[in-house]
């Protein structure tokens, strides 16, 4: 009877709730357009994580535009952390922070929360494995390097964890030639790489 009496009100109320929820979800989607989900783990969880001038993020999932960010994490009693975060579509960005204790109180916190620090270590290992996998997928030749021959060696350098430069070390011109041909033998075209011949001094430079 009461329901019948207030049928209209209930319907309007439900409709309003649906509209508000739908509107909120639409706003969330719109605000995340062009942004990438970044997983943020923090130990201790109440540290202050600053990624840009005045922009603070919380542990959990945060949405950031692709690019490079300078990260600063601080909490009283703990050592501050500064580092870089690269946010790109294909690199599964994760920010995993575990501050080291300085004060006695902080040290007690670490003792009491060892499990959190162990989980952080495990994630670090998994992340390194994943990032290593992405790096190897982008640069499959790295699975075959470094290559060592008694007369030359072929290695690689990477300054951005994404692209590589091949290095060839030998003082002999003939073995520089053989090393370059070795890259072909391994199934790759030397043309596809920047090759640094470490011991070669170019007379025409």
């Amino acid at each position, binding site marked *: 009877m009461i329901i019948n009496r207030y049928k209209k009100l209930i319907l309007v109320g439900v409709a309003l709730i649906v509209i508000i929820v739908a509107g909120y979800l639409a706003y969330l989607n719109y605000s995340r357009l062009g942004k990438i989900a970044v997983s943020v783990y923090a130990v201790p969880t109440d540290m202050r994580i600053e990624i840009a001038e005045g922009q603070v993020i919380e542990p959990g999932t945060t949405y950031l535009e692709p690019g490079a960010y300078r990260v600063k994490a601080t909490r009283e009693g703990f050592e501050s952390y500064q580092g870089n975060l690269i946010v790109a579509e294909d690199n599964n960005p994760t920010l995993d922070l575990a501050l080291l204790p300085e004060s006695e109180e902080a040290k007690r916190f670490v003792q009491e929360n060892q499990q959190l620090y162990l989980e952080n270590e495990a994630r670090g290992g998994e992340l390194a494995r994943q990032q290593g996998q992405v790096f190897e997928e982008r640069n499959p030749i790295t699975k075959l390097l*470094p290559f*060592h021959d*008694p*007369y*030359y*060696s*072929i*290695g690689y350098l990477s300054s951005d964890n994404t*692209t590589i430069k091949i*290095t060839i*070390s*030998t*003082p*002999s*011109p*003939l*073995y*520089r*030639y*053989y090393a*370059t041909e070795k890259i072909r033998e391994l199934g790759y*075209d*030397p*043309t*596809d*790489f*920047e*090759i640094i*011949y*470490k011991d*070669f*001094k*170019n*007379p*025409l*430079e």
Partner: protein
Amino acid sequence: MNKKKIILVTLAVLAVVSGLVLYNLYINSRQTVTLNYDRELFTLSLYDSDEVDHVITKKGSSIKMVAPGEVFTLSKGTYVIEPSGENIKADPIILPVGDTPVNQTIEIPYSDTLLKSSLATERDQIMATLTRTLPANLSLYIIEPGKLYKRGEWYATTLTYKNKVSESRDTLRLVMKKEADRWSLATKPPQISLSSVIYKDIPKDILSDINKLGKAPQSVPAASKPKPRYFIENP
């Protein structure tokens, strides 16, 4: 009577709708194609394609002689274009026809014979540019004859070191480009291996080809061979 009329009208409507659907399917299964090319150098024949062991080849006889700039439609799929002309490299070209209109300029490189004969006329200018642009140490090298590529606007060669015992006797490579009737070095300085990562504006097939050419440096007498190196750390 009414019932008959209703059935007739229904059938007519169904026929019209089916017709429209079939027409729409037909239109969507085809795509417009425009191929632009220099008719004075070659003509283009279009073929259906066949795939054998992941290699696409032409199938049957030519379905069309394509005029430059002509707009025509083809069913979506893969085709083969075969150029023919006297002074060109008549390698077939794969033409995929998909969801977007095809508007392509076809540029066919000159034949090896024509490029070889063109090189004879270009060589003096090329040599003059090299001696003017590179350091005096160029005299340490023999400039090999080299090759012209594409339509004769690219040149690449190897430099063979004259001194047979120097530690820098690696064969070097360079590429030049002709623009507005003038040759200039596209790769500076000449290097052991030319990289497509560094020289993004040079066609990769030219870099790959010149990187394969050139002789291995001569080996030296046993006394001056490098001793074996055994590495225990990462380079």
